[in-house]
């Protein structure tokens, strides 16, 4: 897995050199103001190796991930362009892959996408022409074989480092490692996991992953999200599909005085990162501080992840 770098992605270089990688996340605004992204970039710059730009997350309309990624690059940072299958057919998907690559995007994360029921346009028609695995196959085909899904040749192939997400906590649990195997077979080169709160279950999943040798075929970045408050922890536990927040963690947040809850949330995130660093097969962490970008640096610092290597 180390060695042969296939793209100009800094994230790929760091991972293939065997260094512990850090990725962050930046949600585009619900408007056309580029300065919102620039402000977030100022908070995030240098705190991670690359930053996911979400693609209409939770099915709420936002500035496009491609446009936001370009603004981020203007700020001298490396974006991971997220792309969901919910809103585009294979024609638009391949077109956007070419467009993103032409504008200088080096990383892409392939996702199915939340159902539109959760968003601000539940009446929308969804697409799902491809699913996330087939999206991975598509971008690898385009990059490695220089071909469109039609089989026709691409004049200049898009060089993107290809990632996917995996949720070790969704059901049925028994297929969660086989599902990762499918994503690897499809061509995923790095994986960012869902937010890890249930460390026991995560360790079980990682054991299955390592037993199958998957950690030698794909870089796995453990997902970490700090709780801002007990309210947020409870919301994530009860209202976010596929999220697994154990009772003891909820109790720990609840038992913390309100004014200290944010601090406690960060402490938990740092502890999680420290545990992840020790788990066999973990190549990095993905810090998702949702609308709390200013804390990414603090978490990375406290977890001993700064400064980030230059590539």
């Amino acid at each position: 897995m180390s060695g042969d770098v296939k793209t100009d992605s800094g994230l790929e270089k760091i991972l293939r050199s065997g260094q512990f990688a850090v990725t962050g996340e930046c949600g585009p605004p619900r408007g056309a103001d580029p300065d919102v992204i620039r402000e977030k970039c100022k908070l995030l710059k240098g705190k991670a190796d690359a930053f996911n730009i979400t693609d209409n997350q939770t099915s709420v309309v936002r500035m496009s991930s491609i446009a936001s990624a370009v603004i981020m690059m203007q700020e001298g940072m490396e974006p991971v362009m997220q792309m969901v299958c919910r809103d585009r057919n294979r024609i638009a998907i391949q077109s956007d892959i070419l467009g993103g690559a032409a504008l200088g995007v080096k990383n892409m994360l392939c996702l199915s996408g939340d159902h539109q029921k959760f968003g601000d346009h539940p009446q929308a028609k969804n697409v799902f022409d491809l699913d996330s695995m087939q999206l991975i196959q598509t971008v690898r085909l385009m990059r490695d074989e220089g071909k469109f899904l039609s089989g026709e040749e691409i004049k200049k192939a898009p060089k993107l480092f290809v990632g996917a997400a995996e949720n070790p906590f969704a059901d049925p649990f028994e297929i969660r490692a086989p599902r990762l195997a499918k994503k690897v077979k499809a061509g995923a080169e790095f994986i960012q996991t869902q937010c890890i709160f249930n460390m026991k279950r995560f360790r079980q999943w990682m054991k299955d992953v390592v037993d199958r040798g998957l950690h030698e075929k794909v870089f796995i970045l453990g997902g970490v999200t700090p709780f801002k408050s007990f309210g947020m922890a409870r919301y994530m536990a009860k209202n976010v599909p596929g999220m697994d927040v154990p009772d003891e963690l909820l109790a720990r947040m609840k038992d913390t005085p309100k004014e200290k809850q944010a601090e406690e949330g960060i402490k938990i995130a740092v502890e999680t990162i420290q545990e992840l660093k020790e788990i066999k097969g973990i190549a990095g962490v993905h810090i998702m501080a949702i609308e709390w970008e200013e804390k990414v640096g603090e978490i990375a610092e406290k977890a001993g992840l700064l400064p980030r290597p230059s590539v």
Partner: protein
Amino acid sequence: MVIGERKPFEEILKTLEGHKKILVLGCGGCVTVCLTGGDDAVRVLSSQLKMSRDKDGNPLEIIEKTVERQCDPEYVEEIHDIVPDVEAVLSLACGAGVQYVAERYAKTPAYPALDTTFVGGSVKEGYYVERCQTCGQCKLAYTGGICPIARCSKSLLNGPCGGSTGGKCEISPEVDCAWQLIIDRLRYLDQMDRYEELADIADWSKNRDGGPRKMIREDFQR
């Protein structure tokens, strides 16, 4: 069968505005089985319409009839003598039946009384669920006999997504996760190895996306 649900009464009333005499036409096919478009439904809807229009001082004359199937020209012909006497036909068939009536009687408006909802079956009397999306490329052999196109909210061919929780879909705790059902069944059939095969990218040209479809039995075309 094709499932149809009756449209909101107010919407039906609105489509009939301006008409004084109509034919309320039932269908003896699928919609009779799912209790929304047969003889009984014709009688109930007709009397509701009459009562409502009487109340408004704008009476509506109604002829009631149900044919064997509205999606068959032979049966649609049975209303040939009635159509000249009415201003419009209110059809309780699925969308196909309504169109057969509209095509056959070009000068008489045909209005739908149902919203055609899905292809499915019954759980028990009066309780129907979706099972097929008529994608034109049946995949049930690979998915334990459970359709991911019709039953997964995202039609994922390599599911489940990360939102499957306790056997339920992320869109609602009332909806079963199709992929949980598929995996349970594959396990039961000892076919779990099929789960790890990547599903081919679908050819949606065989779906409605390829344009209106036809099925022709050449041996019957004499």
